[in-house]
């Protein structure tokens, strides 16, 4: 009930994003019609024709009205670049991005939380400095550099990883599409070889993305664990002789996890849009590289569709984060 109200209250913000992106794309210099009419003999006629096809021959307010009514009918327009409806493109590519981002976030959390806890338990120790160094390295090295390095070592030198070209080896046949997440679809189809092939493709890009976000997650875990470990209830718990495990995991970590969830939510949203470099390096057919290509060629519809998608996802992710709060700390409720 409350969740529904929250979703409703985010609609004005979504609408604002929609109109803003629409206007921004029109204000940017660069005429898509000229760009796409670049056959060796394309002249004025072709340019006019494309302009008409894209609806650019009308005035901007008129275009906006058409665009909004299209959106209302669930039509996001057509991409000039791929020649497909934007909705279809996004529907095909979003699972790829989500699968990659989820995996990366999972790897990052599995690595970051223990690292942060270890660092917080012995502040100033060798372990703490080690974690700090690791985090600093992860943040300093841009994802495409770590991606290229991983490819160089694991694909080019060692030959352990499969070729970094998308979600699946070109010679493997795809499972029937159910969720769009290859690793799940393969399991549903009972194809273990396919599942393993898909996972192998996923590991390197997910690790290079995870490396980048381990730092904020580990640092926030450490900081919030320090506060939590120094608080009265932990002192009490220790003084009554509870086991180390109970003190650290049950009392300290559970209380320290809230800020980590918040950051994880933000990190997730950012990763989804900002993993364009990883997608490019690994030829990953995701939404971010799609949007970047569209932006470079001033292909309006895909960029607008992408921004709308990201805004909606952001709303959803925030909702999920709030629900997670409630689970982690019953005192918090979605308001």
């Amino acid at each position: 009930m409350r969740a529904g109200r929250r979703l409703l209250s985010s609609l004005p913000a979504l609408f604002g994003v929609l109109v803003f992106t629409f206007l921004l794309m029109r204000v940017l210099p660069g005429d898509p019609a000229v760009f796409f009419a670049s056959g060796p003999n394309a002249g004025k006629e072709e340019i006019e024709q494309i302009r008409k096809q894209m609806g650019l021959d009308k005035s901007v307010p008129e275009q906006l009205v058409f665009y909004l009514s299209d959106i209302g009918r669930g039509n996001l327009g057509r991409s000039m670049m791929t020649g497909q409806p934007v909705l279809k493109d996004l529907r095909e590519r979003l699972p790829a991005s989500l699968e990659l981002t989820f995996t990366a976030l999972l790897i990052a959390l599995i690595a970051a939380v223990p690292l942060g806890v270890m660092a917080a338990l012995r502040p100033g120790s060798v372990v703490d400095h080690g974690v700090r160094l690791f985090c600093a390295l992860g943040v300093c090295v841009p994802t495409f550099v770590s991606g290229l390095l991983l490819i160089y070592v694991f694909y080019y030198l060692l030959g352990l990883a499969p070729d970094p070209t998308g979600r699946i080896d070109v010679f493997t046949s795809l499972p029937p599409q159910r969720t769009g997440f290859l690793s799940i679809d393969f399991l549903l189809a009972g194809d273990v070889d396919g599942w393993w092939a898909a996972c192998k493709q996923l590991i390197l890009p997910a690790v290079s993305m995870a490396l980048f976000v381990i730092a904020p997650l580990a640092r926030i875990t450490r900081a919030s664990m320090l506060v939590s470990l120094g608080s009265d209830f932990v002192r009490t718990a220790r003084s009554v002789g509870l086991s180390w495990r109970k003190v650290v995991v049950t009392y300290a970590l559970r209380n320290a996890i809230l800020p980590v969830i918040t950051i994880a939510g933000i990190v997730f949203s950012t990763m989804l849009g900002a993993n364009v470099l990883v997608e490019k390096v690994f030829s990953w057919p995701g939404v971010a590289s799609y949007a970047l290509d569209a932006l470079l060629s001033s292909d309006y519809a895909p960029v607008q569709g992408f921004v709308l998608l990201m805004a909606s996802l952001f709303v959803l992710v925030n909702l999920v984060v709030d629900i997670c709060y409630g689970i982690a700390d019953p005192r918090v409720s979605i308001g």
Partner: protein
Amino acid sequence: MRFVSFGSATSVLATTALLLIATVPSHAQSRAETLRYVTGASVNTLDPNIPGSTRESFALSMSTYDRLVAFGRKQLNGKWVFDLDTITGELAESYDVSPDGLKITFRLRKDAKFQDGSPVTAEDVKWSLDRCVTAPILGKAQLLTGSLTSADQFKVIDPLTIEVTLPKPDKLALPNLATVYPMIINAKVAKEHATADDPWATAWLKEHTAGSGAYVVETFKPGEQVLLKRDEAWNRGSANKPAFFKRVIIQSVPEPATRANLVERGDADIVVDLQASDVQSLEAKGKLKVISTPQYNAITFVSMNNQMPPFDNVNVRRAIAYALPYDDMFKAALFGRGSPLYGATWTDGKPANGTYPFQQPVKLDLDKAREYLKAAGLPEGFSTTFSFNVGQSSTAEPMAALVKESLGKIGIKVDIQKLPDAQMSTQINEKKLPFYTEGIVAWLPSTDYFYRNFYTGNQRWNYSSINNPDLAAIAQEARFEPDKAKYEEAGRKLNAMHFDLMPQVMLWQPNQDAVMASSIEGYTYEFHRQVDYRDVSRK
């Protein structure tokens, strides 16, 4: 009970193991019969006629559709390139040009079939050519350059004969029919998908094929990959055999370093768009076959807007032509991979021949540049911007820095401007850029075609915005000049004018560097500058 189930489990295991063993060689077998081509671009439509279609789409359509005729091939410095002067039949068994050059009659092959098994008839050919000149598609502007403008020009004589009538004897009419656009479509199938708004089925053909080409499209994922399967019945190849490869995979791999890794590891078979630095290191390693062909139908320019001060002054343009550090630019941008269009010596001050593009007698000579600037009344120099697009930054960025440095020495202050591709093309179209670098390509590289399309009219491809009535008149006249000697003479005149007016500076023709596994044979440099999958085979 337990024993039985145990037995069945072992037998399952054994069968799996057997299957595994059995599939290994067949996988290797199919790999050898598969061509995997990787590219930074992508196929965005199955009909190359759709406005906005990419070069990869052009190449794909060459394999999925046939044309009436095709270009032959010839050797240029030991490398196979397409030959504009040899036109061979593809769907046409033979063709005759009437003595007055006004009628071309094509006899179709009797055994030619579309991929659905129906025969290719003159009706299909007529429908396809009509579509090309009537529908609002890219083919229209292309066929115009060969005097093919109206559906009335194509006449069905009998089911296997079609006649093309020309208003004037035009040398480019026949070659135009071998280009990408006038592909022959299965009219019966296409018409079924035509609508009142779209009588030429452009929407349907964008995502489906109905051709007679060597390959059938198996899956098409725009922006990712296309899988092709050989049409076993296709026999329009050189030896009346189907194409060599059973399957072709066209895959988009945006990162050039990854493409280089793939081909070096043997996972990809052929790639034509690597960075010059990668090509050089792969060539040095010697494991792969590298075929570098100067793109003899393409040119890279430094262009100046002839209508915009100070470049409206011919002496300013000449000053620029003598102030560019050609050799350094050639090395920095292309690692010397191409053929230069500067540094010629004209002994009698006249062009050596009438072909375009040609080497101009310009070189870096700052004293001469300063004299020209003085003659232009700008001895102190001036300020300007030099633009290039993001898509070309790997070659244009080092070039721009060298231009800035060198022009700075004669007092011209240059600001470098890097523009997103769509912005750059818009500004070129609106004639707003004073000074920039761009490239051109012509599918039918004849001298008059270059001058007519790239040096006349207020249109996008006239980069320098030159407006010289004499030049336009000579080029226009040369188009229909049947006499070879006179044509050559006109070409010489045009080239001399080019050097005198210096509307823009020709820099070089970059190489097409095709890097392929050493087992790949038959690669030919085609007019569309992509790989024609029908050309290649594996040893």
